[in-house]
């Protein structure tokens, strides 16, 4: 099996991270929403960390 084949097959596990995946897109609304929420969450976390860091400094 080629590399890209294993990638597509592996998507069924629906690991939700900010990177997203074709599997999440194929899951439809639920997958896209989860992925976009994750991006927001990561963004917020990073903003909070930056804010905390700047407060601490």
């Amino acid at each position: 099996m080629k590399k890209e084949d294993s990638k597509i097959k592996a998507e069924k596990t629906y690991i939700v991270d900010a990177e997203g995946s074709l599997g999440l897109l194929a899951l439809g609304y639920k997958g896209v929403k989860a992925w976009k929420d994750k991006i927001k969450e990561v963004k917020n976390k990073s903003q909070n960390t930056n804010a905390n860091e700047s407060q601490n400094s």
Partner: protein
Amino acid sequence: MNRKTAKKVLLIGWDAADWKIINPLLDAGLMPTLEKLINRGAMGNIATLDPPLSPILWTSIGTGKTADKHGILNFVEPDASTNDIKPVSVTSRKVKAIWNILTQEGYKTHLVGWWPSHPAEPINGVAVSNMFHKPIGGKKEWKMPPGAIHPKELESIFADCHIEPHEITASMILPFVPNAAKVDQEKDKTLGKLASDIAGAASIHAAATWILENKEWDFCGVYLDSIDHFCHGFMKYFPPQMEGVPDEYFELYKDVINGAYRFHDMMLERLLNLAGDDATIILLSDHGFHSDHLRPKKLPNEPIAAALEHSPYGILCIAGPNIKKDERILGATLLDITPTILTLFNLPIGKDMDGKPLLQIFENKIAPTYIDSWESIQGECGMHPKDLQVDPWAAQEAMKQLVELGYVEAPGENKQVRVNKITIEADMNLAKVLASNNKIPQAIEILKRLYTENPNEARFGLQLALCYQTIKNFKDLRIIIDELKAKKLNNMPRIEYLDGIVLLAENKPKKALAALKSAENKIGHMYSLHISLGHVYLKIKKWEDAENSFRKALQIDINNAHALHGLGISLIRQEKYEEAIDSLLEAIGLLFYFPEAHYHLGEALYNIKQYERAIEAFNVAITMNPGYKKAHEWLIKIYENHLHLPEKSEPIKKFIMEKIKGTIYVVSGLPRSGTSMMMQVLKNGGLEILTDNLRKEDDNNPKGYLEFEKTKKLAQDNSWINEANDKVIKVIAQLLQFLPDSFNYKIIFMEREMTEVLKSQQKMLGRDASIYPTAIAETFSKQLETTKNWIKGQPNMDVMYVNYKEMIEQPEQMVESINNFLDLDLDFDKMVKSVDLNLYRNKTI
């Protein structure tokens, strides 16, 4: 199941999906969802329409009507408010679509992404228009386009579904382009295009899944343009590597197409899970996409040239309750989808629809019902209010008039040029639609105008020529071909090809062969050229050459039903019946409504003594064309000579007698114009003549007159005409008008110099042949002219004019033409030998 056959219907459109790409993926187990769907339902090809342009086609799918009725004619349309052009909108659709009919009938109806569906129609459910998923590109903030969602309050939900290309991540790209990291994105913007295609598909899919999860539904239509987009962008990189594609790009992008199909299979899995097992699923594409040696190397610099990448058959797969399993769907066209869905909902089909329900797919028989039209059935159907529905082309005309009257400022030159260009294209598309629906006179009217206004664009002239070819107006076809040849525009080989077609129609098969062979050297990639060549070879009985030509056509397009049919005929003539049967069955599989293919299948089956199957094949041909006389005659032959069931042949004979016009062959012209010689030629060729031999041979006609006394009284009494059925009879020009309409006539009209005719007549009457009777000459000339004009208007008369002098001087060439015209199996050599040069006695020097 209650009042309808289907509990609910999910209609999924995959623009440009093609079995040629899908089949290897299925074989490799790489599209498991589609595989399951196929296994639990019916599948087959679906024939596209002309022109194969998606907004036109998807509107025909959604309405069951051709574009001359539904009004969507192009990708873009004039915008009367800006004097510019805009993407085609749903308000230009003049008729109800299936989702409007279902809305009117109270069903929960949803639609996502259909092309065109903007602004979203107020149907009884959710409508997400085809502007919703369009990316704005760059990193600008995307906003929901106004009018993209119905009902408006759901806009925020669907805003969450929209994905912009810049949001697509490396993880999503890598399955398509495993070596994406090697792409120099400064120089090569291909990954951006790929991201755009993925984002568009995912946006539509997300919207559809939200509806299926959150809304009650009876019908949901989901349209994805993504496979078409992937194909237009990446098919050139699909293996095998095309000439001119650099290795580097081929290696990078060769997996994109397969990746796109597999991504769609993943999305399909989700849709089917949400739809549930009790839903009826219809998956189809509007046309295919060339993926092999048929991929055009270069697209011509013409509008809508991209459509040349499309192939004529799309995919169709239907599964669900009461749908046959593992069934092959035959003869489906895009127009059949709406009538089929109406049947699934137990609703009547509009008689003004152009398609038919695919009844063959149902396990338990269903009898469809009909009404005149859904357009006249009042009710809230979820179309836009009438004041929003506009004919943009008419609006443009109105705007033009306002400009001319000085009420509105003229648009800028560029705008006007744009509007003019798309108006021409819409007219061309309308002409193609009309031509493919047998509305040839209307098509010709448009094309004549386009050709006159744009005399240097060969495509309009060629399209006009094709119309003339269809209606067998070879006179005008000859004029236009000669004109195009004289202009020496581009497309010369295609003109040469059409020249060959006209020459064949002009009963000059050898010249036709030369023209077609010459065109073959330049446009050998055109399968229709090889099919025409094959038919010429069939005409001149060169069976092996015919076989080779049809095989050449099939090398170019393995799915061409007409090439398979021609191949079948050439194999029958070589007595290779089993091979012929395979070829003809394949042709029928591709194009079921093909009476000639069923007929020849019957002939092949007869020859291997499969009489029952032959009867079945002839009967299908007759069902499609009840006047197919030869098919009836085969049935009689089988019943009488082989099955010994004369009681079955009797009703067929009666049917032929009562319902089918017979053919009478007529030799006509002025007395002494060579009619007796022509009768002699045909008699020696093997055609049965109707004569009573009352008028005996004499010095003027040493080989006999071959006349039938009763023809002299044709004006008073034609009751004897049945005696002439399938025979040849001599009727002088002045009496042709008294032949009854109850027969078809093939007339060989002899022409000879008037002076020679009169000289011969004078001599025969014992008068002084040196005196030229001027008054009689004038009268005869006028009568001939009137008769010839009258024949032109007779639908049951087919005429060939034969010059007496040419017949005497070039008998071989003329006999070849006559045989071609009569389309009978006459003895060429005997016919040629019966032309006696010594009989040419009253020459004009």
